[in-house]
């Protein structure tokens, strides 16, 4: 058990050590300062020239959003087209069929918005063409979209009053060429050398040692898994995601993948500090995020190492902890650690099946997605945190009778309204979605019997988890849920769209509005935002808004299940 705990300590430490210099590097990239990969500039200029884009044209926050939404629309149409015709397109050695319209809709949206909810299974649901042109492609560009939006906010928070916030295409393309593409190349090669397949050949038929005929699914896995983690996408090549022994062959690859998915969200926080030259502010944000992360992590690791009490009653040896849905090569601790990193960060890849975790571990996983700002997704995690920050500044300002200001810019009713709308949208989508679905199920349990794999409280948790995952753009699931039905495909598809773009539009709009305002130098009347006290304030706002709103629903699911089991 000690070496398992050491293992997760080592993974966290390595992530932190790598994220700091990466944050510094990213700040230089987005400020346009000299950096390591400047030799790629001709490539970027080539991309801009071929696309007819002038990457030096400064944009207002509205123009940024229009550019962002337009290109996302193009990607959506492309994805729908390929998914619903993949059966008759090339690169389909396993002859998988085209997707039904509702499943294609859900899949296209889900990858477009960096969620990667998967209502299909990769081995039989996608052709290699779809895996590359839809899945891998959207995993790159959706992550770059989130990073570009965050950089717009960085730019807006500088001390000048302006309308000009840089060029969207410039931020977007540089996120790809300077970060996601080279990073993925390194991760993909590390995986390939550890036994992850990278081939266009179809399944291999073979006869096992015992004499059974089986076939093993292969494919261009390594390239896709790298960006799946690095871009906090999470959608796996295989159905079992990173629990699959070809997608994640050993403890080393598990550590590499786990570091890859945490590193950019963490580095973005440091990048903010370097970019604005406000390191204390970045430290405050990082501190709040880390405290939230550890509070969710500790009980999860504890309960998973303890094992399932129902199995303890059988009198077997449960020294390795709860192993249902887990792989021996990772063990309970690294599986628990992975599950929390993947839920606080909207990555949502899994190396073990969350449905089979202990009830309170399911609760911490859901809370990770409900708060959705402890590190958070590529770029968007910081945007969510920014909305909480605005609310905290406003409330703290009112409490002590000072003008609410953030970084020398006054926060007024308009910004506050946007921040509140964005943060309340999340509980609304989750709770309304779950309530509606539970109502449907309760009205006709026989017709919808295929939905739930488990009875009672746990069945309710499965529905709650699915909407939480959709609204947090996470993509993991209590996969026992029979979710490839028109109801689930369409309802979660709509939730995905709303919960992706409004929380990008909101914070970018706030930042744009703030950027225009006059800079007021800090004085004795300023409430400093970079102190530990203020950190506690932000944490309180997150707990009140994000956690307490969900408490009644959590009481019906995981908490009730916990008390039935212990």
């Amino acid at each position, binding site marked *: 058990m000690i070496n398992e705990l050491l293992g997760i300590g080592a993974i966290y430490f390595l992530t932190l050590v790598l994220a700091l210099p990466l944050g510094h590097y990213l700040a230089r990239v987005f400020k346009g300062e000299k950096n390591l990969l400047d030799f790629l500039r001709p490539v970027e200029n080539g991309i801009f020239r071929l696309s007819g884009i002038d990457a030096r044209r400064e944009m207002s926050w509205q123009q940024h959003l229009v550019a962002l939404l337009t*290109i996302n629309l193009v990607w959506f149409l492309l994805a729908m087209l390929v998914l619903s015709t993949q059966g008759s397109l090339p690169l389909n050695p396993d002859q998988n069929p085209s997707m039904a319209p509702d499943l294609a809709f859900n899949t296209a949206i889900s990858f477009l918005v960096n969620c990667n909810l998967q209502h299909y299974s990769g081995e039989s649901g996608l052709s290699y063409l779809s895996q590359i042109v839809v899945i891998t492609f959207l995993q790159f560009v959706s992550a770059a979209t989130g990073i570009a939006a965050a950089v717009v906010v960085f730019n807006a928070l500088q001390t000048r009053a302006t309308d000009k916030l840089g060029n969207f295409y410039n931020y977007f393309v540089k996120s790809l060429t300077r970060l996601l593409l080279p990073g993925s190349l390194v991760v993909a090669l590390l995986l390939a050398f550890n036994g992850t397949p990278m*081939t266009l050949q179809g399944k291999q038929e073979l006869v096992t040692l015992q004499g059974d005929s*089986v076939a093993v699914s292969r494919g261009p896995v390594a390239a896709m898994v790298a960006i799946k983690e690095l871009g906090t996408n999470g959608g796996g090549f295989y*159905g079992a995601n990173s629990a699959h022994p070809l997608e994640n062959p050993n403890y080393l690859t598990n550590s590499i993948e786990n570091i890859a998915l945490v590193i950019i969200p963490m580095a973005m926080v440091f990048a903010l500090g370097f970019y604005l030259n406000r390191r204390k502010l970045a430290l405050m944000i990082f501190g709040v995020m880390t405290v939230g992360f550890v509070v969710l992590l500790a009980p999860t690791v504890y309960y998973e190492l303890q094992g399932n009490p*129902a199995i303890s009653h059988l009198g077997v040896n449960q020294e390795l902890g709860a192993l249902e*849905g887990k792989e021996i090569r990772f063990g309970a601790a690294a599986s628990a650690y992975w599950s929390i990193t993947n839920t606080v960060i909207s990555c949502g890849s899994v190396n073990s099946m969350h449905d089979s975790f202990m009830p309170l571990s399911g609760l911490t996983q859901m809370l990770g997605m409900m708060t959705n700002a402890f590190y958070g997704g590529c770029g968007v995690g910081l945007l969510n945190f920014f909305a909480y920050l605005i609310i905290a500044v406003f409330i703290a300002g009112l409490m002590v009778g000072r003008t609410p200001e953030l970084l020398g810019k006054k926060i007024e009713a308009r910004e506050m309204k946007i921040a509140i709308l964005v943060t309340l949208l999340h509980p609304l989508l989750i709770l309304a979605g779950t309530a509606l679905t539970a109502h449907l199920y309760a009205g006709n349990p026989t017709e919808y019997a295929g939905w739930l794999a488990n009875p009672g409280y746990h069945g309710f948790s499965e529905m709650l988890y699915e909407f939480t995952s959709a609204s947090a753009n996470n993509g993991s699931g209590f996969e026992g849920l029979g979710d490839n039905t028109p109801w689930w495909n369409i309802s979660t598809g709509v939730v995905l769209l709303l919960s992706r773009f409004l929380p990008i539009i909101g914070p970018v709009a706030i930042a744009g509005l703030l950027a225009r305002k006059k800079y007021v130098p800090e004085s004795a009347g300023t409430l400093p935002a970079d102190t530990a006290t203020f950190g506690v304030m932000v944490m309180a706002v997150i707990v009140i808004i994000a956690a307490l709103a969900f408490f009644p629903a959590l009481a019906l699911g995981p908490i009730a*299940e916990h008390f039935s089991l212990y």
Partner: protein
Amino acid sequence: MKQHLLPAFRLTLVLLVVCCLIYPALVWAGAQLAPNSGQGETISHRGRVVGYDNVGQKFTRPEYFWARPSAVDYNSTGSAGSNKGPSNPEYQATVQARLDTFLLQNPGVAKAQVPAELITASGSGLDPHLSPAGAAVQVARVARARQLDAAKVQALVAQHTQHSLLGPDRVNVLRLNVALDELSSR
């Protein structure tokens, strides 16, 4: 919106080339230097490929070490866990039944010696490993079925146990069984 539509379209085409052609091609080219040219490592026995190093397979005969229960019955064209919740009564009955069956097929083994992994399904349904305890508890049965000395089989398990500094120790079931076949034929 209109002025952004054409650049968006063209940029998408360019990025399709970069992300979907150049990037995978680079990874593919690099992977050619990896073991088995990036097609996954395989294990051969008596001149034929009997499986993938990393993909677990089903063993039901008493003379082989058995792998963990699998929700997909070790069908490696799919992959999944059972997704059963810890409090599900039907699941608890399944686990109880697996334990009873195991004890019946391994006479002389006490409940407390059976590690939980032998009665719980893995996440992928293709878990290639057992813990050292999961192999040790099967040694007596395997030795009996093969009429081998139990100490010899135990030594083989020890030899195939991979110790690691950070994660749990483990035994690759397919590799162990291949070694067993080689030992028996000697």
